[in-house]
């Protein structure tokens, strides 16, 4: 501050000055925070918003078939639409100039009903030759599928500008032509299975981490700190080692003729090598290995803050050491248990790389399908919708976590 005033200030002036200084402090704080906030708004919040937008955005068919959609806008979906709709379809398809737009619309319809892409192209090729006065009959004669109500239902579902098609699809549900939501047939119901598998694998990994991590955290928290510091390295080194290195290591170790099978055979436990990779066993082993430090560290920090006094008190009052441990010590570590399990579970449900490299086709988790629909089939709507499902699950779990942990975030660092 510039030179202090020579005369003592009145109470009111003092208050004003204080307020001014506080305002300046707050401004400076915001100025320091602004760059990161702006950065995260553009590079984190905006991408996630775009993912939400993609999951409901449906502009493609609208661009190509405006007359058709207008003609079926009031259609009830109970019987075939009127001849007007067929004529509008022929007019729309006959008027398409941009092949790319047509291709995009055809792809969109193909997501709904397999084979729709070729149907659209076939119809578009013949559109000029068909007489519009008997459009529906002529379309039915051209291809049987135009006589199916659900074909027209698919067109109506793709009317846009927004759709529930992808989000419902991510949960294996679909609207029929009449607008009722129903579950898709079991041969097309993939994602509930994937979702259940994702949760199941995460649950097992979390349990394994707790089973392996709790005793280790207890050991680290109760032995002299110079020994604990050395043993801690055994937890921290994997934590710092690249995920790819650890996954590669497991791929090498778990191969059919790899060291683990070799060792088991040498010990005489098995005659034939076990299949440990490209199946669920390998996935459990590798993910548990990757996430175990995330269980040990929060447990350790809680246990470290607990002294031995309460256990001693319980024992001195006549409790068996095991009873004292179970009824006095374990309840006190529950915050750490909750923090660790949720942290591991939240991390596990988003796993992609490890199952992709170590699992088989039946061990892929939700993230794999998000990446698959983004990169391989470019069905961005479905990728976005699956992302929304995964994000929602993570958000719910994180809310539980922050409620239980009571802090602003994870505290393993």
């Amino acid at each position, binding site marked *: 501050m510039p030179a202090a005033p020579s005369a003592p200030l009145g109470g009111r002036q003092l208050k004003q000055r204080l307020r001014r200084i506080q305002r300046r402090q707050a401004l400076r704080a915001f100025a320091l*925070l602004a760059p*990161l*906030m702006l950065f995260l708004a553009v590079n984190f919040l905006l991408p996630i918003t775009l993912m939400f937008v993609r999951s409901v955005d449906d502009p493609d068919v609208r661009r190509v078939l405006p007359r058709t959609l207008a003609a079926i806008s009031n259609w009830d979906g109970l019987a075939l639409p009127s001849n007007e709709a067929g004529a509008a379809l022929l007019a729309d398809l006959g008027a398409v100039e941009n092949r790319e737009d047509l291709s995009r619309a055809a792809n969109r319809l193909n997501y709904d009903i397999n084979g729709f892409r070729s149907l659209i192209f076939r119809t578009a090729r013949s559109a000029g030759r068909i007489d519009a006065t008997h459009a529906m009959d002529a379309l039915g004669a051209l291809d049987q599928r135009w006589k199916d109500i659900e074909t027209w239902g698919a067109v109506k579902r793709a009317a846009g500008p927004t759709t529930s098609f992808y989000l419902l699809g991510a949960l294996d549900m679909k609207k029929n032509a009449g607008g009722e939501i129903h579950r898709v047939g079991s041969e097309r119901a993939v994602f509930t299975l994937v979702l259940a598998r994702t949760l199941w694998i995460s649950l097992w990994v979390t349990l394994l981490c707790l089973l392996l991590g709790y005793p280790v955290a207890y050991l680290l928290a109760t032995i002299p700190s110079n020994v604990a510091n050395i043993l801690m390295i055994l937890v921290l080194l994997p934590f710092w080692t690249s995920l790819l290195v650890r996954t590669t290591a497991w791929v090498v170790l778990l191969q059919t003729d790899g060291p683990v099978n070799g060792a088991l055979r040498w010990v005489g436990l098995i005659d034939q090598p076990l299949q440990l990779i490209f199946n669920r066993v390998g996935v459990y082993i590798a993910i548990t290995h990757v996430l175990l430090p995330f269980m040990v560290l929060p447990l350790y920090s809680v246990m470290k803050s607990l002294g031995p006094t309460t256990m001693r008190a319980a024992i001195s009052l006549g409790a068996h050491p095991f009873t004292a441990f179970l009824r006095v010590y374990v309840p006190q570590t529950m915050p750490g248990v909750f923090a660790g399990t949720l942290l591991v579970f939240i991390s596990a449900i988003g796993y992609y790389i490890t199952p992709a*490299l170590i699992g088989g086709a039946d061990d892929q988790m939700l993230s794999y399908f998000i990446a698959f629909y983004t990169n391989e089939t470019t069905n961005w709507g479905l990728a976005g919708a699956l992302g929304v499902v995964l*994000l929602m699950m993570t958000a719910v779990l994180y809310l539980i976590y922050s409620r239980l942990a009571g802090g602003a975030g994870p505290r393993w660092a």
Partner: protein
Amino acid sequence: MRRPYAARGETAFRWLFWVYCGLVFTFLIAPILAIIPLSFNSGSFLTFPMPGFSLRWYADFFASDRWLAAVKNSMIVGIATTFLATVLGTMASLGLARLRPKLRSVLSAFIIAPIIVPVVITGVGAYFLYAPLRLTNTYLALVLSHTVIAVPFVVLTVSASLQNFDVNLVRAAGSLGAPPLITFRRVILPLILPGVVSGAVFAFATSFDEVVMALFLAGPEQRTLPIQMFNGVREEISPTITAAATLLVILSCMLLITVELLRRRAERMGGQGRVAAE
């Protein structure tokens, strides 16, 4: 008669407990240790016992344009990410420390969110954002998206070191006439430096290890080390990968040691500070 019996049970139990913990420690460390000898294998099968010792896979690694380009790309992206994340994160931590606790916890939750949200989601979103802007297949896209998940670690470590920071030092510097920038450089920065450096190391490690977003955003020209390893394991696992993995284990050891030394230094300094205050 109950005591000795219980004591004997306890001893047996203690042994069991130690063996169990020993097995868990082995589980944690064995895969990392097993990969190291395999990288010195003279044969091309990744099995024990090894036929002999050789450095051929390291020679292979350092002779391969693909691996070297991957190392170069990872270094470029990693260093740029570290710089951006450290500057943004340190500034933000200083800002957070001056806020009222309620606002602070809301904003920190937002800053930390990128490490809670599954990377695949941030990656897909980034792809949706950068693809229409023609930013995919550029270093810039990788650096921006890596910074998003690296910044929380910087904010966490710097904020932790600011917690032990005595605000009176800033007031003292101000009362002696130091302008804010000088106060930052000569008073605040030296005291929080361990936290800043730890954060930078975390940021670098995060970027260096990141593969999911890189798979979405990197083109063949930006292929990073993790992508190269991912493809290597996917296609056909060659012993060169074990050489790369061993080099990465050495790197993570160095990073771990740096952070541990900084943490201990900070603890010692914090301890001394407390003694001095008393």
